[in-house]
């Protein structure tokens, strides 16, 4: 496997992990809205909190995490861009 292929295999794996997280916070949670709402967080019913704020915040965190992780993958295979690029 060439360096490029190995880089892409790892990138693809990372993409799948990111999308699993995304799928959980955007869709899986809300399949169980009624059940979640019996729990509470900060005094809010949980499903209400997640759709109003929680999932949104999770997406922001996922995006910063995924960008950093991808930079590390690029570095590992020597595809890191120069700062002044």
């Amino acid at each position, binding site marked *: 496997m060439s360096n490029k292929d190995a880089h*892409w295999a790892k990138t693809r794996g990372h993409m799948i992990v990111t999308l699993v997280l995304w799928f959980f916070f955007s869709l899986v949670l809300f399949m169980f809205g009624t059940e979640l709402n019996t729990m509470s967080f900060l*005094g809010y019913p949980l499903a209400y909190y997640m759709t*109003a704020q929680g*999932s949104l915040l999770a997406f922001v965190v996922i*995006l910063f995490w995924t*960008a950093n992780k*991808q930079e590390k993958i*690029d570095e590992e295979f020597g595809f890191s861009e120069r700062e002044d690029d």
Partner: protein
Amino acid sequence: MFKGGFIQNLPKIYGLYTGGFAVFIILMAIAEQAGVSAKNIGVMFVAFTVCIYAFIGYLSRTVQVDAYYVAGRSVPTVFNGMATAADWMSGASFVALAGGVYFGGYTYMAFLVGWTGGYVLVATLLAPYLRKFGCYTVPDFIGTRYGGNLVRACSVFVLFIASFTYVTAQINATGTIASRALGIPFELGVWVGLISILICSMLGGMRAVTWTQVAQYIVLIIAYLIPVFWISSKVGGGVFPHLMLGDEVARLGALEQQFGLVKNSAADMKAAGVPGGLKYISGPHSAVPAGGMAVWKYLSLAICMMVGTASLPHILMRYFTTPSVRAARKSVAWSLFFIFLLYSSAPMLATLSKLALMDPNLPTGIIGKSISDVQSIEWVQRWSEVKQVFIADFNGDGILQLNEWFMRGDVVVLATPEVAGLPFVISGLVFAGGMAAAMSTADGLVLAISNALSHDIYYKIVNPKADTAKRLIVARVLLVIIGAAGAYIASFRLTSILGSVAWAFDFAMSGLFFPLVLGVWWKRATREGAIAGIIAGILSGLFYLLWVYPKFSMAIWGVTNTPWLGIDHLRFGMIGAPVCLVTMVVVSLMTKEPDAATQRMVDETRIPTGKAILGKQH
């Protein structure tokens, strides 16, 4: 004070700008105390901010192709994030989102998840690769990856339908706000709005739009957050509403029980003469509606908005402007952070506003009070005059019930400061914020359409020998034509036939999502597959929309149809996108695999380093 170039000084420049805007707000507050009328304060807010945007647009004028199309690819990560956030949050988001949550509660908030979750798809599947590709427009990527004029033209067609659906609504919003703030007729307001939009974008293209959008983001976020925090501490919601409204949400649940969530019959509402567009609360605020269908409706709406987000060209093209691939990736994260600041506040504003009106223990409460008392309240009178609120005493008991109070969704953002007793300077600020939100999105959309027409249709297909000067003249002429066409439609209030902005997302996801994603992630995807996918996707989506939307199906077939599996007109992308995917895969597998040069091109797109596929000038 300003050593080094413009880019190095951006934090200083926008810092000064923000300070200047704060000083302006204070001056207006002093003017209000000194007796300047509310109307004049509104005029000054809108006029002052629009003049600043126009000034930035003028300073950013350019005669270079890559500055015009992609801002010279020099926009730093965080600033591109702010510009994207302004590009994203439309006049509708600004004035209507909180109203949507106010009336729709939990169910409506699928939009919030959809309009933010889509950015995860943008960052992982598309933005970094499109940036590496080095294209000027979204069809530029599709045209080069798959090769050929036909596929390029097809993608321009989808871009045009999706963006134009969206832009008329934005110009409409600019017109509404301009007319209310400046006290001019709506038809005139639309053209004033258009001229402001064109001044920002015409001379400098993407470069000018970028720097005005950053300025507009600063205005709109200040204008949204100050009232939310202020109202919250004023009505006893706590100093930090996002973390502290748990009790208020529970209280709303109790009040819903107390007043009862009653559905009015259409006949009753017609008999009482409720003006069009006004709504009443009939669903719970935080409770999750029971049943599998309700869950499916939530999920399908979220899917449509997420996938649509990842296919809307005016958003994707913002990531062409960053200096590098990693900057593009980071920039998506910053965009969502800046969007989050507003989106997470909208439900809080809705909660506060709802509680202020519903809680009989608060001095602002009106539900459960006597109707004659409510009708003598100053703000109720003012908003009744312009048919934005309405009272119908269905049961004739003289007491205002929850289902007897009608209101337009926009009123939540525009009137809550007044209801809670904030000074008018805050309402003026809200007008300026709404104007900024509507203008920034309209700018981005008009530019996306005219760039695709001038670059992909004129330069790549019609006249590939055109020189730089000629290309930029064509681009600007198209910009004016597209803007004028949008304003023309808006001024006749024909926007109601264009339905909802959600349609733009459904159109984009039906025709563009899979051709874009598979272009990067599936080497086997062929030109024929892409053409067939785009055409099948957009046509099946469009046909389903005509079939399911009562206004259209009545006009064409004289019948109304029951949505299939609950897929109504807001969700028709659920039909178009799968059709696009299946067609594209099947046709790709049936046709010859792309040649070695194309495969190498895809390989190059997938790594961040090395030369862009398309040169700096193309």
